[in-house]
């Protein structure tokens, strides 16, 4: 399901009032933060690993053209077929074609952000093909007609009572309690029949290795393993930035990813396949290399660091903004700090101009990022681009005019002092018995929950001059 656009402050306001969401997120992020911190602290070389991860991704993105051609050669040599998709529509058409060739109106799916990004399920439905999500949380989201709110835990905003009702209604199970084991078992039974009967699977990938053509998925439930081994044909839709130059780069990435993502030393299932192996697994493999805005991101020498992301979600889990607003406020499959720098770049700044401001620039995200993306730096950079390329264009909005005027005041000590005096005089209708309770215009948000200290009788510099 795609998101209706809304400015972040407006969408956030709605989510902040959702007490179920707030409670779930507080509990989940607190738990995962502690787990991550524990498994990271036991590695003496964690900082070196992060630096190694950063360098690998830097090289991958810096020489993307070369690595992609190499990947195409490797996958083709191993018996796979490589497709290039400029956008979502092209990728969806490729999947639909494979499904038709196998005479099926159903495909099974591994949890994949790239396919959510392009609304694959909706696109296939328009072509008469039903995509079945096999990851438990993705299945919940799909059955509920809901939207993901976390990169790794898409149904983090739901509770088990809701899931019980959903399964009873959508899977037609009369007897069901809200015990998590029982809920998981119900999903397992439903999915097992699909794994064994549907001939085509669709996956994303955590990485694609240029050197060997190996493609891999890292997961916890084993549904991914079923999807990439049982069907006759497998289609993997992979963003072009998912590339790793060498197979041995996995040594670094497979240490960084599970510890950052789920706080585990190792994830339960790591599936890696290289083209087609006769008599073993799908006998037809399609790799769809998806651009969908990524080459535009590449054109920004600072912003393109966002393409280094390995989708671990550590930045979401430590973000004080995400913890309170949840993922839906970001109106994108990529929420949290990484979403705030990725979504506006993938879609175009004018499509999500408020997202770079959805952060207090506290820097907690940068501290945990396993490939050291300086997210605060990119947020500030993108704010500048929004001001220069969107808000400041044509007739600039009032904020732009005010901020530019303010800069001209600050740059002159004479005007600066005059403004201090003017502020002191101008505030008198607002200041009452020591505090300002209500500020006008765009500053009203401040005094909604906070008092404002008025400008005192003497500035520091006036005191300094008097003292000398």
């Amino acid at each position: 399901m795609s998101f209706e656009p809304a400015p972040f402050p407006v969408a956030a306001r709605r989510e902040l009032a959702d007490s179920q969401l707030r409670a779930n997120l507080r509990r989940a992020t607190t738990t995962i933060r502690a787990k991550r911190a524990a498994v990271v602290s036991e590695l003496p070389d964690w900082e070196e690993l992060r630096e190694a991860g950063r360098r690998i991704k830097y090289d991958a993105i810096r020489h993307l053209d070369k690595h992609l051609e190499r990947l195409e050669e490797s996958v083709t040599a191993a018996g796979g077929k490589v497709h290039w998709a400029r956008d979502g529509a092209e990728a969806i058409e490729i999947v639909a074609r494979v499904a038709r060739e196998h005479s099926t109106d159903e495909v099974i799916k591994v949890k994949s952000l790239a396919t959510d990004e392009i609304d694959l399920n909706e696109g296939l439905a328009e072509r008469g093909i039903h995509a079945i999500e096999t990851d438990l949380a993705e299945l919940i989201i799909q059955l509920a007609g809901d939207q993901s709110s976390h990169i790794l835990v898409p149904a983090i905003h739901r509770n088990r009572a809701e899931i019980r009702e959903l399964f009873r209604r959508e899977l037609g199970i009369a007897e069901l309690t809200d015990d998590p084991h029982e809920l998981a078992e119900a999903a397992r039974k439903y999915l097992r029949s699909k794994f064994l009967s549907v001939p085509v699977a669709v996956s994303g990938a955590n990485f694609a290795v240029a050197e060997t053509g190996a493609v891999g998925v890292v997961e916890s439930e084993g549904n991914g393993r079923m999807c990439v081994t049982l069907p006759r044909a497998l289609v993997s839709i992979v963003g072009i930035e998912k590339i790793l130059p060498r197979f041995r780069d996995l040594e670094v990435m497979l240490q960084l990813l599970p510890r950052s993502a789920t706080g585990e030393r190792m994830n339960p299932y790591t599936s890696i396949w290289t083209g087609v192996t006769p008599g073993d697994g799908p006998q037809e493999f399609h790799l769809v290399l998806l651009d969908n805005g990524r080459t535009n991101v590449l054109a920004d020498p600072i912003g393109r660091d966002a393409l280094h992301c390995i989708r671990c979600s550590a930045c979401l889990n430590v973000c004080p903004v995400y913890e309170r607003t949840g993922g839906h406020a970001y109106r994108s499959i990529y929420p949290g700090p990484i979403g705030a720098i990725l979504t506006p770049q993938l879609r175009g700044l004018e499509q999500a101009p408020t997202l770079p401001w959805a952060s207090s620039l506290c820097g907690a995200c940068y501290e945990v990022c396993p490939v050291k993306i300086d997210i605060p730096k990119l947020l500030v950079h993108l704010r500048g681009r929004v001001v220069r390329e969107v808000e400041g264009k044509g007739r600039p909005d009032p904020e732009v005019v005010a901020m530019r005027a303010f800069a001209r005041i600050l740059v002159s000590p004479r005007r600066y002092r005059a403004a201090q005096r003017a502020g002191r005089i101008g505030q008198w209708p607002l200041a009452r018995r020591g505090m300002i309770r209500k500020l006008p215009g765009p500053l009203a948000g401040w005094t909604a929950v906070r008092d404002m200290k008025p400008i005192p009788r003497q500035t520091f510099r006036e005191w300094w001059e008097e003292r000398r």
Partner: protein
Amino acid sequence: MSTAAPVSKPRRVALFIACFNDTLFPETGRAVVTVLERLGLEVDFPAEQTCCGQMHANSGYQLEAVPLVRRFVDVFADVEAIVTPSGSCAAMVHDQYRRLAELAGDPGLARAVDEVAPRVHEFSRFLVDVMETTDVGAYYPHRVAYHPTCHSLRLLRVGEAPLRLLRSVRGLELVELEAANECCGFGGTFAVKNADTSAAMLTDKLRRVLDSGAEAVTALDNSCLLHIGGGLARLQTGVRAVHLAEILASTEDEPAPAPAGEVSA
């Protein structure tokens, strides 16, 4: 992250007050002067200083901030040590000035930034690292919680410096603040552009301050303290937000006024 390079103990320092403190918190500036002079330092206040440009740079007005960068490096060009009671303004100089000079395509400005930035010291780090002191003779007989502001914590990496100073204050009881490293929700223009989310973050910070049993909460930045203190005042908590410098300026002979919530109309 770049931080100020170690230097030998200076005899004179220049104060960069920060526009925010100059205008709204002159008491913090007076406290900084008191503490520095108590240590035998001669304090200068270059009158041509205005603003470091942080608000503009962080709000998307990098180009508008460049003249402020230029002004800063000019005003402080020939000074041995620059001390500022604002963690985020110090971080602005260390973390962003170089980038802004590059954005402006001005190699001369970049060189000037490289000259000046290592001499800019956040107040608590200056006392502990440069002046090599943790006991500045302060007396403040109150229960105090310390909130590590994000930029002092993650950009300047001040670490234990403010805590060591606080532990040396006679009469002061330092209380534990739960989830201390979590942002208070200020974030400059974030507090007004995303006022609701900022309020949600502030509420949790206030709850933890109140749970700590502190009479006062302190930090290295009056901007975060304006936000925290504004919330404490609105809710009539009777807990005060006070800059570290004001605690350190307080002595037996000249004690700071007792912590009392600002009077709310």
